[in-house]
């Protein structure tokens, strides 16, 4: 009996009238936990009952404490008939289970009913007494902290970053059980809510166990998702990054424990570890060893838990002889893996030449960005051997093999983090992604979710091999997603291949860090942009140049990543949101045929999405993408692709070339004219964009630098190669000629449309910026005014003669209009930036497209913004008006002959995997693997940025924030998808918020139609999130995300149903301006944190 849960029901208010006769309600409350139920007295005839109950005490297992939610049901007492339920409150008591977080949950909770929505509020107090000893404690994984935040949470520092943890739990979906036919919708919804709550609790506990096995004490970047597989069940899966975190306790550390790069960061002695971000140790390979050696198995770790202390100490001193084994040396990554790659790329080459249909299918342009890498080879062979598939049999074998090799290597060196301590990332290779189409069938044994596990293992394996191909040993910014339609499911995973600093793999001791720091300063400032792979044996054709920053290492000309822009990267100008949108019609089909059709379409979609991204990036005059997220959604009769990323101009990367349009039918005069007209438009747009985003890269004077850099502005290739000849490698030289122009050939209407669509993207109105990363590159003087919002749109396509073009246009318009609406709505916040813009597409029905956007608008101070763009680099170099030249001069003629070798490195690896149904339809022969790989590195130099960052003008935000919340009876709770709150310090994390709601109506019209229904529901969800945070004692939710918003309607029956799943981290923040005042309170916090340290770390 390791825990006693105590609950007190205080009062209710604003209850609905349940008795029409008296216009009053006789309410009482049932409090249920596990199988125990308590009841309060009936409080007669009141809409504002005061129960003031005794303390209801539940003596429970800590396992139950983790799994079960506390369920509070408010009912109306009825003497003659059954009591009517008013509504329920589910309270996740997990935050009470670790000592640093909340100590009590107390406050007003909205009483929620799945049919009627919120019906009044109830005041509840919840406490937990844990009277178990530490060891016992750990076995149930109570005490492991969870964070949604995908960076090291502010006010913590990472002692060790252990690495990837994942788990999934499956069950039958109550909605599809036989009993659902005879029970009410309410009962069914509640069963579902409760089940999912239980499953997430269980999942979290299981992940917690894994973390404890790894000797960690926290999960960062925790992402939990539901797959509603319909008939075949309900899957709850989660991934995260296990870490050992230390609470920052010194007051000094508090100041900089911060949000955005701030001034203090520099001033604090490094060993204080002021910025939690600075610290973390890179896990990857050595860690794996560590894991292995310490906790070979679950049982072992359980038994040995009493000796945890010793074990967790060991890592600090234990040497990792194997550490540097894999491409860990930042300076010579290519050496270690060179031979390996050589082989593979040979294979690649042959492979691609063997598949002629491949190149034929994509027209000349295709050739440019498609490359087949060894992964194709891998997948093909894998499939051939095992025909993998649902049974998972062959896969087990594969897994076993892995396990063996795991002795030497980490199984999945993945990190769900997107922001890292400086120096952690050595090189970034590019985006790696993998997709796989699977057929769902009933999960027969929920306790052994092997199939789903195997599916994911397979995908992860693929990702890992992609990363390897890029010369990287780790994947950062890793995420997984699914799209389900009927019985077909697309599993996707993506991340950014990276080389991590071996030093961070060790315990983050002070000396190590210091040393590292020094080294960083001396040599590798722009290191993350430098290629990790061997330039002679590139996994894909890329165009390399010397880094524009250090001039020593090679960099690619474009870099795509899924991570946030490193805080110390040197960026010129501002960034912007770049989206690629795509629809493809597909025939309706069943089962295998359907899966085959989808699989056949996927590579083309991947390719096109990629091309679009590349074109748009060029059009913006930028050279790198961050936060890239590609979502492929499957529907009955179409596939949708939506990629969002934030484009920036990295100073270390070369200036992007322009876009060149070429016509296929040169004889037609008017056509020519048309082409040249388009060309002009494109050039104008690029020029305009450069101005808009303040992209004025310094002119690089060849005399100064010794000119290793290809000059895109120079028309003549000869000239260029001359100038470069001194120190450039020859084969690289060859590719230079192809680099400046990205050629779009207009040979049919499709291509024409592509060009048009390029030009239809309207830039945001002045005063607005948008990005999908945490912070907008180039802006750092945020004020404290933030507005988080969710916007949902559903359009119905006219079913008449749908073509791909019409579909694309509709989809494009939908997204553009949505953005326009957002800009309009938020115009009062100008100057402002939409950050973390997160688009989700779903296809709920045949002709419906649903787009959901969640983002936060943050105002910034215009005056200060201007200064920040200057970088030291810029200063040291002469400024010249390069723009004109660049824009006007495209090597027009070069393009045609340069086609075969692509000027642009394809970006990002994708693969389509047919293995799941391969055994049935044997269509896998057609496997096409498209993969573009990306490379990206940015040069970084943060000094200036850092300086400008902190002045976040106290003055400004004071004015703005003053008026609100003066006399409010309801405390203001901020919500933001970001991991920080501008102008404020997060002082405490109270626990994870992970909530799932279902809302259903049978009176859709009366509730204002679908819009009214969903609007109210989302507002209610926000309200419930805020109420829970407030009850935990918090005043904000950070890293908020709406993971799911499944909306179904049946207007004919006047019905609709919606499921929403949200999560985030509840926190306490203090305004920077109030910090002095608060400092007196800090001792308390410190106390707590030291307690925690005692428990967990020592």
């Amino acid at each position, binding site marked *: 009996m390791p825990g006693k849960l105590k609950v007190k029901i205080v009062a209710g*208010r*604003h209850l609905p009238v349940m008795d029409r006769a008296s216009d009053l309600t006789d309410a009482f409350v049932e409090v249920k936990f596990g199988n125990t139920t308590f009841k309060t007295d009936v409080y007669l005839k009141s809409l504002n009952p005061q129960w003031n109950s005794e303390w209801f005490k539940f003596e429970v297992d800590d396992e139950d404490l983790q799994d079960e939610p506390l369920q509070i049901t408010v009912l109306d007492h009825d003497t003659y008939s059954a009591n009517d339920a008013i509504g329920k409150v589910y309270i996740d008591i997990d935050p009470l289970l670790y000592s640093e977080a909340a100590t009590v949950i107390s406050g*007003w909770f*909205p009483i929620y009913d799945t049919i009627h929505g*919120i019906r009044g*509020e109830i005041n509840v107090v919840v406490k937990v007494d844990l009277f178990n000893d530490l060891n016992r404690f750990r076995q149930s994984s109570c005490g492991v902290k969870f964070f949604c935040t995908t960076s090291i949470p502010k006010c913590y520092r990472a002692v060790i970053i252990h690495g990837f943890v994942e788990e999934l739990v499956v069950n039958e979906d109550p909605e599809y059980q036989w009993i659902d036919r005879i029970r009410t919708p309410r009962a069914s919804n509640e069963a579902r809510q409760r089940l999912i709550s239980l499953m997430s609790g269980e999942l979290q506990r299981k992940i917690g166990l894994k973390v404890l096995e790894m000797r960690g004490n926290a999960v960062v970047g925790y992402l939990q998702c539901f797959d509603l597989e319909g008939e075949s069940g309900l899957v709850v899966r989660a991934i995260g990054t296990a870490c050992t975190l230390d609470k920052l306790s010194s007051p000094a550390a508090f100041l900089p424990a911060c949000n955005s790069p701030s001034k203090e960061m520099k001033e604090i002695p490094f060993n204080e570890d002021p910025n939690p971000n600075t610290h973390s140790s890179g896990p990857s390979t050595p860690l794996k060893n560590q894991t292995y050696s310490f906790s070979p198995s679950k049982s072992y770790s359980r038994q040995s838990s009493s000796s945890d202390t010793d074990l967790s100490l060991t890592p600090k001193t234990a040497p990792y002889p194997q550490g540097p084994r894999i491409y860990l040396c930042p300076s010579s990554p290519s050496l270690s893996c060179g031979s390996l790659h050589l082989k593979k790329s040979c294979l690649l080459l042959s492979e691609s030449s063997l598949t002629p249909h491949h190149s034929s299918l994509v027209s000349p342009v295709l050739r440019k960005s498609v490359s087949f890498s060894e992964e194709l080879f891998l997948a093909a062979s894998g499939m051939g051997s095992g025909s993998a598939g649902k049974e998972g049999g062959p896969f087990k074998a594969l897994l076993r093999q892995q396990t063996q090799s795991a002795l030497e290597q980490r199984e999945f060196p993945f990190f769900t983090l997107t922001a890292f301590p400086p120096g952690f990332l050595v090189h970034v290779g590019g985006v790696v992604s993998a997709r796989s189409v699977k057929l769902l069938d009933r999960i027969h044994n929920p306790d052994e979710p092997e199939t789903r596990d195997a599916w994911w293992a397979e995908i992860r394996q693929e990702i890992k091999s992609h990363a390897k191909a890029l010369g990287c040993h780790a994947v950062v910014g890793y995420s997984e997603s699914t799209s389900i339609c009927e019985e077909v499911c697309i599993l996707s995973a993506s991340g950014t291949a990276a080389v991590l600093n071996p030093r961070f793999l060790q315990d983050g001791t002070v000396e190590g860090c210091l040393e590292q720091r020094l080294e960083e300063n001396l040599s590798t400032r722009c290191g993350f942009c430098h290629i990790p792979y061997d330039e002679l044996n590139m996994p894909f054709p890329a165009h390399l140049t010397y880094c524009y920053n250090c001039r020593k290492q090679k960099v690619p000309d474009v870099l795509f990543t899924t991570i946030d822009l490193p805080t110390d990267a040197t960026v010129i100008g501002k960034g912007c949101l770049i989206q690629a949108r795509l629809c493809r019609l597909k025939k309706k089909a069943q089962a295998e045929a359907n899966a085959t059709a989808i699989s056949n379409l996927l590579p083309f979609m991947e390719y096109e999405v990629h091309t679009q991204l590349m074109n748009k990036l060029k059009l913006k005059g930028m050279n790198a993408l961050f936060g890239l997220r590609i979502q492929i959604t499957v529907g009955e009769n179409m596939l949708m692709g939506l990629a969002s990323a934030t484009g920036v101009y990295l100073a270390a990367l070369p200036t992007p070339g322009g876009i060149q349009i070429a016509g296929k039918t040169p004889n037609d005069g008017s056509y020519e004219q048309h082409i040249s007209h388009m060309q002009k438009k494109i050039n104008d747009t690029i020029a305009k964009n450069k101005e808009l985003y303040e992209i004025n890269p310094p002119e690089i004077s060849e005399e100064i630098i010794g000119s290793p850099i290809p000059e895109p502005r120079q028309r003549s290739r000869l000239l260029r190669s001359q100038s470069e000849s001194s120190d450039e490698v020859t084969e690289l030289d060859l590719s230079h000629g192809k680099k400046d122009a990205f050629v779009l050939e207009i040979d049919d209407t499709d291509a024409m449309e592509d060009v048009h669509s390029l030009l239809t993207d309207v830039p945001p*109105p002045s005063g607005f910026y948008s990005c999908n990363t945490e912070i907008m590159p180039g802006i750092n003087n945020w004020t404290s005014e933030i*507005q*988080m*919002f*969710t*916007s*949902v*749109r*559903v*359009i*119905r*396509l*006219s079913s008449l003669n749908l073509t791909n073009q019409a579909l694309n246009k*509709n989809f494009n*318009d*939908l997204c553009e*209009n949505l953005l*326009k*609406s*957002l*800009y*309009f*709505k*938020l*115009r009062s916040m100008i100057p402002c930036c939409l950050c973390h813009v997160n688009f989700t597409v779903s296809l709920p029905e045949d002709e*419906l497209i*649903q787009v959901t956007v969640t983002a936060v608008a943050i105002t910034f101070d215009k005056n200060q913004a201007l200064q920040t763009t200057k970088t030291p680099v810029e200063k040291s170099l002469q400024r010249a008006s390069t723009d004109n030249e660049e824009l006007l001069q495209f090597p027009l003629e070069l393009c045609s002959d340069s086609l075969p070798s692509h000027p642009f490195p394809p970006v990002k690896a994708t693969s389509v995997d047919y293995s799941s149904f391969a055994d049935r339809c044997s269509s896998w022969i057609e496997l096409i693997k498209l993969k573009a790989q990306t490379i990206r590195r940015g040069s970084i130099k943060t000094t200036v940025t850092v300086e400008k960052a902190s002045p976040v003008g106290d003055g400004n935000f004071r004015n703005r924030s003053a*008026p*609100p*919340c*003066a*006399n*409010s*009876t*309801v405390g*203001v*709770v*901020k*919500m933001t998808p970001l991991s920080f709150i501008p102008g404020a310090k997060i002082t405490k994390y109270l626990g994870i918020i992970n909530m799932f709601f279902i809302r259903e109506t049978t009176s859709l019209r009366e509730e*204002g139609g*679908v*819009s*009214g229904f*969903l*609007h*109210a529901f*989302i*507002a*209610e969800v*926000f*309200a419930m999130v*805020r*109420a829970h945070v407030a009850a935990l004692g918090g005043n904000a939710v950070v890293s908020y995300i709406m993971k799911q918003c499944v*909306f179904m309607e049946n207007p004919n029956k006047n019905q609709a149903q919606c499921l929403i799943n949200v999560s985030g981290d509840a926190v306490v923040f203090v305004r920077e301006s109030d910090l002095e005042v608060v400092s007196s309170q800090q001792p308390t916090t410190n106390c707590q944190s030291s307690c925690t340290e005692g428990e967990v770390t020592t």
Partner: protein
Amino acid sequence: MTSELDIFVGNTTLIDEDVYRLWLDGYSVTDAVALRVRSGILEQTGATAAVLQSDTMDHYRTFHMLERLLHAPPKLLHQLIFQIPPSRQALLIERYYAFDEAFVREVLGKKLSKGTKKDLDDISTKTGITLKSCRRQFDNFKRVFKVVEEMRGSLVDNIQQHFLLSDRLARDYAAIVFFANNRFETGKKKLQYLSFGDFAFCAELMIQNWTLGAVGEAPIDLDSQMDDMDMDLDKEFLQDLKELKVLVADKDLLDLHKSLVCTALRGKLGVFSEMEANFKNLSRGLVNVAAKLTHNKDVRDLFVDLVEKFVEPCRSDHWPLSDVRFFLNQYSASVHSLDGFRHQALWDRYMGTLRGCLLRLYHD
């Protein structure tokens, strides 16, 4: 391609004041969009009509959801669904309860019943205020009336406490409630020149002086009669007013009163001769109004009577306002010198208020 669903939900509820006004004014979404387009917002922001349409719909939906809460403003403060900064909450409430002068003049003093509600169509046509807006305003009056009807204590305070209105607006509502409760006639043609402000002013004076609450520690506090302290006129006082009749009934008293007034005002009044000639008529009018107030019917006609018996005669003689003031002051004060008159306190209670009212009512 049609938009099936289109919503925007902010963590802090976005309130667009302009749209709120259009909504309160009862415009349909289409009309509101047209009006917004005319305001030039598209040019300013570079938005399209579709964006405007979507934005307007969104705001309307939000307001519609808020409306339920606005019916009981304290709920708006305590509710958890919409996070709205207090200043915005105050604005929402204040604007929601604001009313149009033209509308309130039509309804003032009428019974806030279903019958009146049926007349809203006509009022809407007459005033040019949309029916929707008329309904909202009418329902507001009625709602406030219902809530404070049975309450004891200061009318203004009650309103302020239950509807969280500004002082100014709460006073206006007090006047509306007071007028509705006493059913003062305000719609006659003769009274058309009077503004709501004029009536509100009078109402406030009457509440302060002529109601039960005005007596301070109400003598009948424990009385079970359900007279509302501030809403109903003090019946006893009205009864007593009969006693004032002596001022005009007693010839001597009347003459003496006249001579006192005339002596004091001689040379100070531009319209002295007219005053002198009319004194008895005016005095008779004012005192008779008082004496008649025992009948409900006559209470209702109070303002008609005042205008007929006093305002109009003076106006036809072109009395300047300053002269009216001199006259009324002297007229009230002189009574204190009438030895035979014993109801000085009563007179003061009556005349003090009446003087204020008359001065306010005396204009074109």
